[in-house]
């Protein structure tokens, strides 16, 4: 099976990191993965997106035309990528920054005030971890344990407080994702 995902948002929201952690976990779980970022003269506040593919097969194109999963952290991301999501695909939308909503009715929409929830957990920095949690809860693309191990390996000594918040955000995301199953 091949799962193609696009994550998009403002630069600084950590969308590239969403793809990176999912690719890394997928790799550790023995899958083939690819991670292709948008790059260019971009900065905080600009738009950023990343195509991530996780597959049991060798990956042909790392470019995703029709994503199975879209993580949209702001309205421009919905406007740009929602039209190409596969029928029945998953759209994860941050309602705090998507005032016009998602125009598709033939997709599985998980809409949540993700910015509010991130702040509630303790920092806007965990917004992307919340998104990863929703992906895990909703689709089971990767395992929570792999993510936890990965985060532990570099955050436990460096910043245990941030580690706790990140793990809390992922767990909260998983709950949200499972509720929408």
């Amino acid at each position, binding site marked *: 099976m091949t799962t193609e995902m696009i994550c998009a948002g403002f630069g600084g929201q950590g969308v590239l990191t969403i793809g*990176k952690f999912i*690719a*890394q976990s997928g*790799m550790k779980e023995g899958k*083939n*993965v*690819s*991670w*292709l*970022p948008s*790059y*260019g*003269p971009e900065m905080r506040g600009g738009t950023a997106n990343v195509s991530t593919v996780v597959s049991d097969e060798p*990956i*042909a*194109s*790392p*470019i995703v*035309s*029709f994503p199975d999963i879209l993580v949209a952290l702001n309205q421009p991301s919905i406007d740009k990528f929602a039209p190409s999501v596969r029928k029945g695909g998953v759209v994860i939308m941050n309602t705090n920054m998507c005032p016009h909503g998602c125009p598709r009715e033939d997709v599985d929409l998980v809409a949540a005030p993700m910015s509010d929830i991130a702040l509630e957990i303790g920092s806007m920095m965990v917004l992307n971890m919340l998104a990863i949690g929703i992906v895990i809860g909703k689709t089971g693309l990767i395992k929570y344990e792999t993510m936890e191990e990965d985060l532990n390996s570099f955050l436990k000594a460096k910043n245990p407080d941030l580690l706790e918040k990140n793990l809390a955000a992922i767990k909260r995301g998983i709950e949200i994702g499972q509720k929408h199953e």
Partner: protein
Amino acid sequence: MAKILMKGNEAVAEAAIRSGCRLYFAYPITPQSELIEYMAKMMPKVGGTFLQAESEVAAINMVYGAAGAGKRVMTSSSSPGISLKQEGISYIAGAELPAVIVNVQRGGPGLGDIQPAQADYFQAVKGGGHGDYHLIVLAPNSVQEFADMASDAFDLADKYRNPVMILSDGMLGQMMEPVEFKPAKTQEEINTLGEQHTAWCICPNADGDAKHHHEINSLELDPSVLEKHVNHMYEKYAVVEKNEVRCETYNVSDDNEVLCVAWGSASRIVKSAINELKKEGKSVGLIRPITLWPYPYEAIVKAIGPKVRQVYVFELNTGQMLDDVKIAVEGRVPVKFWGKVGGIVFTPAEIQEKLEACF
């Protein structure tokens, strides 16, 4: 060794170091800057020399000097920077020196943009600098292959005393994929590598014989001597053409109705389209040249099955490798081309549409 998720730019740098490269000279440019950054970080840790030159021209001439000393040396840049290096590349080829040059292509001409493109095919394969010479040109299509090609490139450069170019692009440079590295060469192995060129390189002579004189030069004012030299280079190239052609075939069979030819990043996207067509019961094959020079002319001819109505070339340029495909096909079947330019990468859906129109 476990797999590591890494950018192509970083992976090729790490692989070069593992292959015994201890000298690297370059000037930064997007989209290859992670490569120079990685070298800046790692070279001091392995006792190598990293130098950010004042310009691309300076960097390639440092490569010329280091290669003249018979050491494994590398430089890298992206399209406009590679243009600046062409004079030095011609000198290195003319002086028959081993060196590795990485081009992480971006859109052109001129400064163009910083997005992926394949518009430097002609420059890499058909010359670039002045004079009769060839680079050996390797074209990866994954992060793993990009890394593997570092050691291949050094081996080929040493074997034929000729500069080798790895022709990549912004997509392969920027994307991350799992990569598994070969074990790093030991200091002893690196020393042995250094000794293979003592017969001609500028180096201290073991016997202390001051009269033992080696010259590194690309200037030869006597036409009869230069003629001999160029002919000798072309005898060498004939051996390269005989021994070093590499390509990948994908889904090639007697059922193929269309045969695609694509290289580098573009070939990945074509593969996806071929997979989709397979589901529709439509048989399309792909030839992916891995060496762009020497070019796999014969492999293309061989892959044209009995039912193939058309050869379709897809590139991220306006049709450069297309010429070589036409040379290979020699009018046996029509050769069609479609590409995207300006740093825009075509999607699997677009290629699928183009291929479906052939049925």
